[in-house]
């Protein structure tokens, strides 16, 4: 049972692609081996910035001999056909077997396939894996045609068994497989050959390469923590950064440096962003929680213990932070001199979208909207409007110009510096949220009002100019905006009918004189494109679709949501979900399931009769035409259920209403068992149809059961 070792040595592979690539190498090779008839005991893949490696243990030495049987023409078919069949199968005509396949004798060819040695299979499979490798982006180099993520320099491919290692003979793009590799670019650049995976990993380490990414990550984590701890400091954990950095080095060397005193007053997020995004530094906090040091990870041991490297990194960081401080000071100067208005100057010159006006126009609309939403979410109207007016101001700040990822956050800092209420400053930061499905939802009333206004304005605006998401295209992230609204409403239990806010607010803002001439163009454009009055209804439908996607995770079926969405007040998403949850709950019960069957039967009979007779049976049934006791029971049950359901619905107690509805199951079943609705007697028939109509009306007052599937 030989072991297989493969290494593909290249120029530096982008850190973000390494782990995936190692897994791809593993699956491409092992799948290929198995398809070719080999089996193996275990496989593991590894990556460093310059290499992908794969170790396959306990590979079978060759694929098994196999026999293939092929059915051919019937015996007595023309010679040409028989000869052709034999030739195709690669056997002599005389070797064909005759067998009775039920409808007379037929020729069979039995083809023996000899097993092939693992060496040949590995060579084939590896070549195919290299040629078909699913790099996100690949390239050519020199004069060759081979594609790889960066130039490929070496292929190590050996099979090792009791007799020792042997090279698997293969060649691709002018590179022949061998048994050797090289170590670290600067600390182990001599070639060496290896005899097994253990030998490979050990020799790499001697040549200053740690093969396993998780080992490199652990080393970095451990050394960084130790260094911080030794100074009484604490490392700020960052898993994503750790993964990235461990893909940038083959030999991690952790160095800790100081951040100049003159930068420590900058907001910690500014320090952290600047260090992480541009320099891939970790942050280190002191006892007061202030970021005071950085940790950088070098790829080399130096005779001066990293002093030169640390000094260089410190200078690069100082230059970056000097920029950041320059921006911060300039922004603050403006805020202190003229408040947020001064900082936001020029927002009217920033186009939000050509048909929807500038950022200033948008701010006007959001402010009006936030004001009208405020009372419904428990926020102070003036505060909500004020927050909306300053929420986008930081887009004009120099800091956000340099670090766009700090938008919102800088708004909070500047609003606080301008002396605005804490809730207003907080809203400046939080109004973009939730950004993704895992991002926290704002809970403060002012933040909620502005966050809703921001998203609703975006959606209504793009709907008004007919720029809706299609298929995979959603350039304005409208799905995310709708999901944000849904999560804001549900997480905060908001009772907020959306329809009044789904009409494009640009028009309203103009009426209120909030926004000046810039809007005329927008309004004209809107009238020009005949913005349909049902744009709002269409947008509500979009919300319902997003809601289905969102609630799928909670196991709510889409047709249950349809049944709830078809009811009045479906723009109140909280109400809609409460109704859908109650419906899903009752459908899980035996009574509920059977009631649904009864409802369907009633509805079918009734619909058929109404179509046929061209009338609607909604006059109310009369007890005096009762013939069967089952009818009395149903009458009684309906009379008793009606007030219960009405009362529960009045309290929005959907579970109660549905339980009362499910209670009708017995009487309805009994009625259908005992009574023939379509009686010969037209008076009885009409009365029974009117009784069915009561069932339908009552059930439909709870949810539109006709929307349910199955």
């Amino acid at each position, binding site marked *: 049972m030989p072991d297989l070792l493969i290494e593909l040595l290249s120029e530096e592979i982008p850190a*973000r692609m390494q782990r995936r690539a190692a897994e791809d190498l593993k699956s491409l090779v092992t799948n290929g081996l198995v398809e070719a008839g080999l089996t193996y005991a275990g496989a593991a893949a590894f990556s460093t910035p310059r290499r992908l490696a794969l170790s396959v243990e306990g590979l079978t030495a060759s694929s098994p001999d196999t026999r293939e049987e092929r059915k051919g023409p019937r015996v007595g078919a023309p010679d040409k056909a028989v000869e052709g069949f034999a030739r195709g199968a690669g056997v002599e005509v005389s070797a064909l077997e005759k067998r009775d396949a039920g409808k007379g004798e037929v020729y069979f060819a039995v083809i023996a396939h000899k097993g092939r040695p693992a060496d040949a299979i590995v060579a084939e499979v590896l070549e195919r894996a290299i040629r078909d490798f699913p790099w996100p*982006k690949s*390239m050519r180099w*020199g004069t060759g045609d081979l594609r790889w993520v*960066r130039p490929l320099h070496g292929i190590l491919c050996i099979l090792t068994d009791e007799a020792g290692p042997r090279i698997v003979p293969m060649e691709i793009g002018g590179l022949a497989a061998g048994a050797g590799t090289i170590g670290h670019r600067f600390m182990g650049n001599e070639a060496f050959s290896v005899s097994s995976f253990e030998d490979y990993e050990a020799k790499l380490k001697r040549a200053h390469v740690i093969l396993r990414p998780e080992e490199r990550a652990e080393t970095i984590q451990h050394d960084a923590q130790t260094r911080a701890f030794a100074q009484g400091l604490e490392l700020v954990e960052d898993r994503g950064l750790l993964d990235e950095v461990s893909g940038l080095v083959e030999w991690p060397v952790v160095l800790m440096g100081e951040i100049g005193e003159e930068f420590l007053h900058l907001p910690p997020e500014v320090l952290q962003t600047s260090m992480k995004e541009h320099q891939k530094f970790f942050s280190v906090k002191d006892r007061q929680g202030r970021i005071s040091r950085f940790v950088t990870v070098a790829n*080399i041991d130096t005779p001066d213990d990293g002093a*030169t490297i640390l000094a260089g*990194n410190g200078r690069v960081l100082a230059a970056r932070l000097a920029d950041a401080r320059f921006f911060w000071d300039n922004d603050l100067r403006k805020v202190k001199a003229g408040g947020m208005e001064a900082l936001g100057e020029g927002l009217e010159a920033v186009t939000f979208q050509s048909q929807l006006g500038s950022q200033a126009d948008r701010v006007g609309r959001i402010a009006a909207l936030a004001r009208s939403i405020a009372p419904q979410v428990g926020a102070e109207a003036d505060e909500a409007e004020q927050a909306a007016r300053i929420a986008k101001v930081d887009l004009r700040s120099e800091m956000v110009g340099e670090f766009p990822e700090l938008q919102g956050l800088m708004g909070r800092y500047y609003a606080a510096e301008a002396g605005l209420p804490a809730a207003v400053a907080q809203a400046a930061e939080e109004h973009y949220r939730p950004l993704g499905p895992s991002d926290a939802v704002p809970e403060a009333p002012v933040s909620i009002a502005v966050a809703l206004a921001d998203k609703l304005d975006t959606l209504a605006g793009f709907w008004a100019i007919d720029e809706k998401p299609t298929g995979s295209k959603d350039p304005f992230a409208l799905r995310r905006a709708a999901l944000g609204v849904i999560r804001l409403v549900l997480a905060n239990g908001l009772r907020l009918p959306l329809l009044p806010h789904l009409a494009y607010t640009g028009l309203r803002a103009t009426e209120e004189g909030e926004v000046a001439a810039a809007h005329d163009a927008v309004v004209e454009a809107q009238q020009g494109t005949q913005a349909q009055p049902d744009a709002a209804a269409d947008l509500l439908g979009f919300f319902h679709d997003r809601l289905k996607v969102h609630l799928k995770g909670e196991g709510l079926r889409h047709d249950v949501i349809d049944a709830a969405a078809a009811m009045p007040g479906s723009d109140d998403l909280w109400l809609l979900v409460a109704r859908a949850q109650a419906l899903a709950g009752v459908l899980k019960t035996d009574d509920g399931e059977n009631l649904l069957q009864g409802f369907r039967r009633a509805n079918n009979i009734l619909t058929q009769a109404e179509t046929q007779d061209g009338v609607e049976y909604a006059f109310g049934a009369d007890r005096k035409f009762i013939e069967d006791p089952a009818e009395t029971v149903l009458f009684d049950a309906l009379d008793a259920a009606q007030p219960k359901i009405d009362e529960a619905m009045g309290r929005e107690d959907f579970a109660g209403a549905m339980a009362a509805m499910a209670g009708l199951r017995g009487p309805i079943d009994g009625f259908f068992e005992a009574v023939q609705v379509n009686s010969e007697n037209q008076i009885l028939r009409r009365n029974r149809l009117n009784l069915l109509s009561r069932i339908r009306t009552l059930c439909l007052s709870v949810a539109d059961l006709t929307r349910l599937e199955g």
Partner: protein
Amino acid sequence: MTGKPRSFQDIILALQAYWARQGCAVLQPYDMEVGAGTFHPATTLRSLGPNPWAAAYVQPSRRPTDGRYGDSPNRLQHYYQFQVLIKPSPPDLQALYLGSLEAIGIDMALHDIRFVEDDWESPTLGAWGLGWEVWCDGMEVSQFTYFQQVGGHDCRPVSGELTYGLERLAMYVLGMDHVMEMPFNDPQTPMPLTYGDVFRQAEREYARWNFDVADTPTLLRHFEDAEAECARILEQPATDPRTGRQIVMAQPAYDQCIKASHLFNLLDARGVISVTERQAYIGRVRALAKACADAFLLTEAGGGAPEAAAAS
């Protein structure tokens, strides 16, 4: 140069000497305003077609929007790039590049050199490639790119391109914090000059002109003139009526493309190009670049067969 470089020009001289030793033709800057060394025809045009090429040169580069009146420690509207282009890219290009860092006094045993993913794309040139930005102790000192496409044409063979941002690299090697304080020539000479002595005045003047004074109607007209002239040059029949020879005028046309590109940058600095117009302008320059690339491939230098092209 012997020993560690002491001035900006020492670094330029060392790089030129090093790449000359590696067999590159050391060219001089192209005599037109460009945004980056890549625009030099020795890179854009010569990276096309099958003929081998190896050149190194300094290229003054202009980025009008980066002007800071000479105040910024590291931003300039006029700066220098050192550019190397080798076709086909040699297998040891990374090692050759590291050798150039040693040649300017960066000791590989003391510094942390890293190749960090950075894909290069030039929408105005219709070009892209894969490679890295090279970090020295956390500082980006070069761009390293394997050209995959230029002017919309696949590069076959592939060229390797190295671009050194000279001021930044020199500041790092010389330990300077402000570009204007960096010694331009040997600080021990009787007449030592700093970078600021040479460029501060010009930076101020150009910043003012770029941002506030350049006449935008004139720039717009020049843009359109360059565009039209480029098309007119390329429309000419390949056969020159005067000499009867096949002369496709790829480079004169490309000059007009370079002009249009720089005029676009100036208009951008004047703030008169909106976000939507921006894409349209870039598209117009790219169309010129592609037409010039097509033409270059018909020339002898571009590996074309002028006779066959004329016959078709």
